[in-house]
């Protein structure tokens, strides 16, 4: 792998990890909200 490819590799992995992190955080918040609403039923 050339240094440019290495750089691109790290950039893509970082971007992907960020998106996965945000999606997981979103699910945590969603499940918290669903639980609160469901307990109120």
């Amino acid at each position, binding site marked *: 792998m050339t240094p440019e490819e290495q750089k691109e590799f790290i950039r*893509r992995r970082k971007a992907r990890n960020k998106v996965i992190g945000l999606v997981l955080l979103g699910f945590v918040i969603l499940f918290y909200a669903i639980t609160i609403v469901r307990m109120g039923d």
Partner: protein
Amino acid sequence: MTMTAVPTATPLPTEWRDFFALTKPRVMSLVVFTGLAGLLAAPGSIHPVLGFTAILCIAMGAGGAAALNQWWESEIDGKMKRTAKRPLPAGRMRRDDARDFGVLLSATSVFVMLVAIHWLAAVVLALSIFYYAVIYTIWLKPRTPQNIVIGGGAGAFPPLIGWIAVTGDITLMPVLLFAIIFIWTPPHFWALALFVKTDYADAGIPMMPVVRGEKSTRRQVLAYSVVLFGVSLLPWLIEGAGLIYGISALVLSGLFVALSVPVGLRTTRPEDSMKPEKRLFAWSVIYLFALFTALVADRMVLS
């Protein structure tokens, strides 16, 4: 080292945008709209958080099914100009990754629907994903020129699921909403197929204008439009919707039929501008949005 003729996917990690593209975001926006319309038109109410969750699940399910569709059709997509730039045929993603992503999205959507909303909504959602990914994509699309009719079934599920998320049961009304989109799809798509000559034939997909010819396709467009006229009025006739919907359906569907008549009866000349077909296609898109908006407005005013 020997070179292989098969283009291999990039060794670099796939961009997250390509995963997003795999969910067919533009199709998803229509799915979200009709799903939301079903949810809002249903009698009863749902907590906004749960309503949001239900729509999210419908969207995720549609995205998962779209990913599975592209996993299966990557070779066909590579043969057609319109689809050759998708992540898989363009070699920006590994095929197995697309499959796993599709399965993960589908399974998550059904699971969340099950625990957060209602078991019946989850069952119908699972059924809709199976219908699109397996019955339509794998089984019938490459085998019959009725593929568009069958595919319309997949697009018809969202308002049904949205409705069930609120009521927890299946009554005649949500089934009619299903029927409207089901009947709407063939004239909508075939109008497009008449003026956009795509390379389906090269890819081995039996599209109606290619298999049965233009004349037969035109007749069928008109026939479906007439049936759509009747079916779209049913929610009003069975008193599942009020006057706002009834009059809207009458006008919108009346125009649909009026625009279908020239498409159904004419024959194409050389250097034809295909204006009637383009007009019908444009109207069919407006039609669906307007009809479902009228349904929701009707319900909002009545309650």
